[in-house]
């Protein structure tokens, strides 16, 4: 199997991000939530990336923030996948009224931009990680629903699904044993894209002050904390911004590669 160089770069960078997220607590040189220097020190041997607006070590916060950003985004995209593909398959298998109702609810949710819906919801709900993951996961599941339904529609008319139905299998069996294994490859490629979307979403919410709450760190929140330094020429806010961009681009590269591989396997059908 030949991996194109762009995908290889993406794989390596994604691997580094995941590694640092898993071992964040071991890798952090300082505590992420305590001041260890003066305000806005430049990069030095003791603080590789300098210190932030109240003198906390930026590298430590970056590592911890990466862990939280990746954890929240991953949890939200897993939730959106579980929900979206379950209801998508259900709609495709049952057809009729179930399909109509699920599809119209999905249309309704997609009629407003997710950010606006999220803002309306977060003005009422308490701000904590569980609520954030639930809101992001449910809002994003509409996109997975569309894809899963379309893919499952193709599969649901195959002979082997027909055979399973004639054997008298229940819909649970049809969904999990017949359709899911065959729908997996386009869904896996989509997972990468949904994950990036979740990273950008949680970062944007935190940047607006409505995502991860201090003293916890995440990348969007770090940009917000340090943005005032920018007008004095201090680039502390750009470090987490760069991390978001780098993570998004590297996962994008991998997803692009998986997508082109799976679609060529299926004779161009994506």
């Amino acid at each position: 199997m030949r991996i194109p160089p762009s995908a290889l770069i993406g794989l390596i960078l994604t691997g580094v991000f995941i590694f640092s997220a898993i071992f964040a607590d071991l890798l952090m040189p300082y505590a992420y939530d305590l001041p260890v220097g003066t305000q806005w020190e430049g990069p030095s041997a003791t603080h590789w990336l300098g210190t932030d607006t109240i003198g906390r070590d930026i590298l430590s916060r970056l590592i911890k923030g990466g862990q939280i950003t990746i954890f929240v985004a991953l949890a939200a995209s897993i939730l959106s996948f579980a929900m979206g593909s379950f209801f998508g398959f259900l709609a495709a298998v049952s057809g009729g009224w179930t399909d109509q109702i699920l599809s119209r609810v999905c249309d309704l949710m997609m009629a407003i931009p997710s950010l606006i819906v999220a803002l309306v919801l977060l003005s009422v709900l308490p701000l904590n990680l569980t609520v954030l993951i639930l809101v992001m996961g449910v809002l994003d599941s509409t996109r997975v629903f569309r894809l899963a339904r379309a893919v499952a529609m193709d599969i649901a008319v195959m002979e082997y699904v027909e055979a399973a139905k004639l054997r008298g299998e229940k819909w649970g069996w049809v969904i999990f044993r017949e359709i899911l294994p065959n729908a997996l490859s386009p869904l896996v490629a989509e997972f990468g894209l949904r994950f990036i979307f979740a990273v950008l979403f949680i970062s944007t919410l935190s940047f607006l002050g409505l995502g991860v709450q201090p003293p916890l760190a995440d990348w969007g929140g770090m940009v917000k904390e340090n943005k005032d330094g920018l007008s004095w020429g201090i680039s502390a806010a750009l470090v987490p911004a760069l991390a978001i961009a780098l993570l998004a681009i590297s996962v994008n590269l991998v997803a692009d590669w998986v997508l082109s591989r799976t679609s060529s396997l299926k004779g161009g059908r994506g």
Partner: protein
Amino acid sequence: MHPIVKLLVQRIALGLVLLLAVSAVIFLGVEALPGDTAQAILGQSATPQALENLRAQMGLDQPALTRYFNWLGGVMTGDLGKALTNGVDISQAIGQRLGNTLFLAGCAAVIAVPLALILGAVAARYAGRWPDKVISAVTLTTISLPEFVAAYFVIYLLTILFPVFQPVAMVFPGMSFWAKLQAVALPVIVLVMVVLAHMMRMTRAAILNVMQSAYIETAELKGLSPMTIIWKHAFPNAIAPVISVVAINLAYLVVGVVVVEVVFSYNALGQYLVDHVTKRDLPVVQAVGLIFAAVYIGLNIIADVTAIIANPRLRHPK
């Protein structure tokens, strides 16, 4: 009735139904969530009697459905109620800011649309060759950036490395048009960056899609000149998808505007929305949310309507 008129009426009616459904979700859906407006105002230590009085005063003791229709009636007549936090009339507050938001989005659209169409056409013309690859690589990068990250890179580049602009976009009544344009230059650059990539990629796909269809091949095989093919065969068929691409991306601007306004402390609707989400001022959030939803749905209807009108196959049915 001409079938196209029927299609248009159907599409617009569907949009209005959707808008009504969205208003119900914004009002009733939020009501169903845990959380109590009276409690939010008075705090945790409020006595039950005080809560009761405030609820009665705000009409919160009535059933949710009654309040929804009261609210909807108010929205229709332009009365959006008063903000919880400072008692200011919401319609008035929105009226001042809506103009600023539309000015910002309008400036971005005026630059982004022609640029995206030209770049998209160039990328489609040289599909698979280096101009296409360069444009694709650059746009893939900008798509991966959230609006606020793009904004800070632009701020760093244009106010610190090359100090050309002011990092804050202040607009106030009485400013001359030219001064306003100067003030919004940076946010407009950021918005153009964010929308351009999507718009250009979709334009490229739409043009390529048309150029690869069978009738273009037939025209080529007939020996028509490339210009004739583009003008008489490709252009009429490509215009519908391209117009809908433009409208869809203008709708996408709605979201970009919210974040960019906060970055540049630009006093407009998005900033107003985010402020009041933080303050948990539900009536304001519902009203502004409904306006954003209406603009978004409206632009999507326009996209569909123009696509229907511009489609030669629908205009001249067999």
